[in-house]
């Protein structure tokens, strides 16, 4: 029999409903797996006692026939989400010791539906990063073995500085690694420029960034307000659909959250693609794209065509400006959003001779190098004399990027298929050169979606020559996550689920 933590979320749900297993034993199986997997550094705060209490309550509700849609299902929570009375630091030193007295709307929705919290997951500091190397808790190791490595080699590296092990992607690296390594049935994540889809692609998991406004941002530590969106990472398309249904929904506490009903996304699985039009944007065929990414993409197109979809070549001419525009808008918003971390009301405080010195020392010590860099860039592009040249121009380019997509959708395209990342996962420590832009290029395929506020989903499409997972991305019309789930389900069925090699960490 499959170990309980290796069930999919849907399977576990069905077994709980059938009373074949209990929420308590399911939760214990996960707690055991987490304890053995500390070398991955996926969890930065484990809450086993809390998890068992929640699981027992779930078992009682199941016994009473009052089970919610996620009853008894153990999940991990990205450290970005405020969890009442529990560790919440966005993996930054500046929030040292912070324990919120409130619960984020998205996690509150999960608990309302019966889910069990296993703990808080590692991430890039303030979600700024594409490799989970900027966390103040150190990098997360992907459960995937680096090509050519022995289990012993990986174990040794895992016990040490983790150099050479694979990154799980970022910023939701802890979420992706935990899901891939069966340390939870699913995890909350967040996506500002690709932080759900890129790690999902790197770890052979499924992740969806819903339409901007679908999930409440209330209680989620802000990085870039106009780009941030919550979403799940899970091992199957179905699991993502189940989780998103609970996470999403109108919240009057977030002025940018839309007031519209949340569909039952699971019902979209199995819908026919016959006659649906899938757009293939030529601008995503970037210079120097590797043959295997190109091959993956072609394979994805074949899956769509075989399922009866019509393949349409489209043009999204402003694609190449999305990443540079993103690196103006996101840091600008971040520089302002992170101004509240000043050592006055919570978190780290460094003493200073006067208030200004206290601020400067606190923020220098509390923020890591990548966060400092982005705050500085953001401050610069908003400063007097540069605002119009940078920020306003970038927001205009955002309009053009959205217009590109609108044109394609008006022409009858139902969804767009692209690769999720320009490469497979790389090694920890491999891309920490002096040029930060090298790392930023990871998000070249995903960031357009955030700039336009659209839904985007990453689903495994196959393995690289080295045996590492590669992901395909589906981009949809605003609030049409259902088509993405339908199409992703087809890819999942056609490509087959990516099988994680045997664990080296336990």
């Amino acid at each position, binding site marked *: 029999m499959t170990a309980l933590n290796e069930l999919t979320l849907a399977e576990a749900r069905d077994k709980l409903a059938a009373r074949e297993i209990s929420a308590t034993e399911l939760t214990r199986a996960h707690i055991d797996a987490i304890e053995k997997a500390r070398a991955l550094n996926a969890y930065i705060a484990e809450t086993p006692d809390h998890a068992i209490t929640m699981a027992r309550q779930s078992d009682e509700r199941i016994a009473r026939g009052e089970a919610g849609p996620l009853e008894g299902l153990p999940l991990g929570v990205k450290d970005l989400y405020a969890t009442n009375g529990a560790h919440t630091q966005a993996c930054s030193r500046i929030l040292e010791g912070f324990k919120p007295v409130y619960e984020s709307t998205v996690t509150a929705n999960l608990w309302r539906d019966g889910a069990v919290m296993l703990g808080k997951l590692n991430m890039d500091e303030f979600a700024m990063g594409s490799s989970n190397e900027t966390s103040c808790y150190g990098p997360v190791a992907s459960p995937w073995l680096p090509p050519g490595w022995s289990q012993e080699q990986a174990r040794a590296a895992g016990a040490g500085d983790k150099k050479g092990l694979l990154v799980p992607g970022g910023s939701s690296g802890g979420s992706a690694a935990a899901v891939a390594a069966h340390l939870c049935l699913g995890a909350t994540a967040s996506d500002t420029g690709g932080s759900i889809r890129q790690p999902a692609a790197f770890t052979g998991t499924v992740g969806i960034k819903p339409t901007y*406004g679908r999930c409440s941002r209330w209680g989620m530590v802000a990085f870039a307000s106009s780009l941030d969106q919550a979403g799940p990472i899970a091992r199957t398309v179905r699991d993502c659909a189940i989780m998103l249904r609970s996470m999403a929904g109108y919240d009057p506490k977030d002025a*940018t959250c839309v007031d519209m009903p949340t569909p039952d996304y699971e019902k979209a699985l199995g819908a026919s693609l016959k006659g649906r039009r899938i757009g293939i944007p030529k601008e995503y065929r970037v210079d120097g794209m590797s043959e295997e990414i190109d091959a993956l993409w072609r394979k994805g197109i074949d899956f769509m065509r075989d399922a009866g979809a019509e393949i349409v070549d489209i043009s999204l001419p402003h694609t190449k400006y999305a990443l540079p525009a993103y690196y103006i808008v996101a840091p600008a918003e971040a520089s302002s959003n992170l101004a509240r971390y000043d050592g006055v009301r919570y978190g780290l405080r460094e003493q200073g001779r006067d208030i200004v010195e206290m601020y400067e020392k606190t923020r220098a010590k509390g923020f890591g190098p990548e966060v400092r860099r982005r705050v500085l860039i953001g401050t*610069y592009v908003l400063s007097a004399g540069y605002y119009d040249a940078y920020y306003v121009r970038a927001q205009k380019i955002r309009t053009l990027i959205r217009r590109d997509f609108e044109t394609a959708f008006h022409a009858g395209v139902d969804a767009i298929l692209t690769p999720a990342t320009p490469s497979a996962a790389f090694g920890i420590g491999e891309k920490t050169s*002096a040029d930060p832009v090298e790392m*930023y290029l990871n998000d070249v395929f995903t960031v357009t979606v955030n700039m336009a506020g659209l839904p985007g989903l990453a689903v495994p499409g196959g393995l690289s020559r080295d045996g590492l997972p590669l992901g395909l991305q589906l981009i949809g019309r605003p609030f049409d996550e259902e088509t993405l789930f339908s199409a992703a389900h087809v890819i999942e069925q056609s490509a087959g689920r990516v099988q994680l090699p045997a664990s080296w960490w336990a």
Partner: protein
Amino acid sequence: MSVDQATVRRIAHLARIAVKDEDVPHLQGELNAILAFVEELNSVDVSDVEPMTSVVPMQMKMRRDEVTDHAGAQAVVANAPLHEDSFFTVPKVVE
């Protein structure tokens, strides 16, 4: 556009982040790398384009004028590095 070291220092002060002298040159290099990267945007004609103001086109909802939040002073200062009674305390500020 690129930044000089004086600008790096000015921006760091504006952002209230202490920067050590020895860190200024490599920060300057990194910021300039990012600025060079975004330079590309200057080639786009944006003359008749409105900047994006709301990601989702909808009208902003307003809340009713009701007192609904009673966090309580204890909850407000619960995480404070320093507080006295229920005031936050900071190094003395001279106006």
